[in-house]
């Protein structure tokens, strides 16, 4: 390939990249300006790409609305509790699988646990709906969401923690035994610090999945417990959607995972690829 030919191709590729970038960012840009527009400007027949007026009153409205705040709080409660539970159980099981349950039995068990994450939850949610409905806590509760989010977060946490524990050299733990540390002390003193970055990434991934979850929340809850995705459709006036408020609220709700991703991007690749790609 000649040099000029290569230049031409490179330019074309960069143009393609640019178009994709515009395609990716345009909706986000539009979301941001919409959240800053007054209702009147949004309801015009032709949307404005350069808003005439920008104001923060939509955000003020969100933060003054108890319903919105409660839904964010509900999301925090459910996602944090679920993450803590997934991480705790996943760390224990991941450690056992990585270190102590050897051979085909351990491997098959690990893959079975992982397979739970891939199955469509349709076979889970219908029975659980009826089961929880007959239980004292009912479907519309923190408990039901915290437990049901384990369906996808627990396999992920277990699998990934296993991968991270496998990466931590066994010899360091053995050195600790020879120093005289019992297995429990060695685990906290040596092993856990080694997998700490892994735990952070697992926690973040579990948290983001729980935070973003819509389907279970939509089907099971909505009155006593109402996470933010379920709250969004309530921004209406009659049959009219209040897009300015929806967008402002959405922006607030999506900010935490975005910020976490930007900070912890390096640690997440491993988790997002189920441990296959070392980030």
């Amino acid at each position, binding site marked *: 390939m000649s040099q000029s030919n290569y230049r031409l191709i490179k330019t074309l590729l960069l143009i393609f990249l640019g178009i994709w970038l515009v395609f990716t960012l345009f909706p986000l840009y539009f979301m941001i300006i919409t959240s800053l527009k007054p209702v009147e400007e949004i309801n015009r027949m032709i949307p404005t790409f350069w808003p005439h007026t920008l104001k923060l009153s939509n955000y003020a409205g969100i933060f003054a609305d108890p319903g919105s705040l409660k839904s964010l709080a509900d999301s925090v409660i459910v996602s944090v509790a679920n993450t803590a539970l997934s991480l705790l159980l996943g760390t224990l099981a991941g450690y056992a699988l990585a270190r102590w349950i050897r051979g085909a039995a351990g491997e098959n068990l690990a893959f079975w646990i992982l397979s739970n994450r891939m199955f469509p939850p349709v076979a889970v949610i219908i029975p659980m709906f009826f089961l929880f409905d007959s239980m004292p806590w009912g479907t519309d509760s923190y408990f039901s969401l915290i437990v049901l989010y384990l369906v996808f977060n627990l396999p992920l946490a277990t699998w990934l923690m296993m991968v991270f524990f496998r990466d931590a*050299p066994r*010899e*360091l733990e*053995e*050195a*600790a*035994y*020879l*120093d*005289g*540390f*019992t*297995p429990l*002390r*060695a685990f906290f*003193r*040596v092993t856990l*610090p*080694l997998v700490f970055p892994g735990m952070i990434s697992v926690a973040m991934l579990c948290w983001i999945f729980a935070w973003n979850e819509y389907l279970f929340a939509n089907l099971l809850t909505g009155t006593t417990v109402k996470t933010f995705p379920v709250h969004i459709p309530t921004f209406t006036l009659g049959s009219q959607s209040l897009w300015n408020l929806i967008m402002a609220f959405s922006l607030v709700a999506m900010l935490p995972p975005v910020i976490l991703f930007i900070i912890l991007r390096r640690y997440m690749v491993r988790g997002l690829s189920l441990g296959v790609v070392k980030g």
Partner: protein
Amino acid sequence: MARLELQQVCKGYDRPILDRLSLTVEEGEFFVIVGPSGIGKTTLLRCIAGLEVVDAGRVIFGGKDVTRVPPYRRNAAMTFESYALYPHMTVFENIASPLRARRMDEASVRKAVLEVARLLRIEPLLDRRPHEVSGGQKQRTALGRTLVAKPDVYLLDEPISHLDAKIRHELRRQFHTLQELRRVATVYVTHDYAEALSLGDRIGVMGDGGLVQVGSSRDVFERPNSIFVARHLGQPSINEVPCRLSSDGGLLMLRSLEGNLSFAMNGMQRALLEKARSDVLVGIRPQHIHVANAGSAAQVDNARVEAFEALGATGVLIAETDGVSLTVLTSPEEDFEPGQPVRLGFDVEQFLYFDAVHGRNLQA
């Protein structure tokens, strides 16, 4: 009370690694195990440490059977080939680790760690982390972590194999002078025969399944009990010439099976070789062949240089004579061109004779 005993120890994974291995290392003894990589040296250490359970047999520390005792209650200290330093702790904390396990008070920990650090000359590094120090310093830190524990048994797994030649000289000397290692039983594992010969009070040469020969440095190097031992110790490797005994007009001759090399035998060798009753494998160390002047005994005149390398303190000549290729140790100052004719002399009394079938030393 710190003698180490192994009785009929067996360990295998998909194949047997240690087969009924018995060994006693006396208190204060520095015992070196040498053998090719992958032969099970590390497995043996791990069995002694308790990181692996033996399949059969007993491990005894100072008269106490510890076969079923977990590693954290055995009071054995071990350095790992990879050093296994805790990356998230400073050098100080790494060395202090065994004392922390014993929940020793802070002042005593400080005192003990500083003492060991002074002994190993790593005091300036105590605040650094393992990734900030050199290989030799890592090795010293790992050693410090074992010394500070005052254990009943020292287990050292290839402690200096991955370091540069210069540092190895320095650290070998350190192992010679550390008095603490002479207090109890020490087992040192290496694949480098020079390290083994230099350090071991006794040396165990390990082959498939267990120790092939146990003895002093001179025993294993000069009187190997099998061709396996002879082959593993020595660089360049021992020359192996398969020969057949023949009598040539009343004179007993050893004649090489390939090519046409032959040596006349004297009476004692003859008595020895008649035991063999089959072909003999003659082992000739490269330093027992030399480039000779005319007139010296047991020599060949028609050798030809195949290759020559001047290494550090020695030169290595590969010469071909009568269809047999021989490695010869020379001075590095000499120079040989390929194809050049040379005259070789042999120290016949230093030859080793092995059974051609089983490889046993016939003199043993």
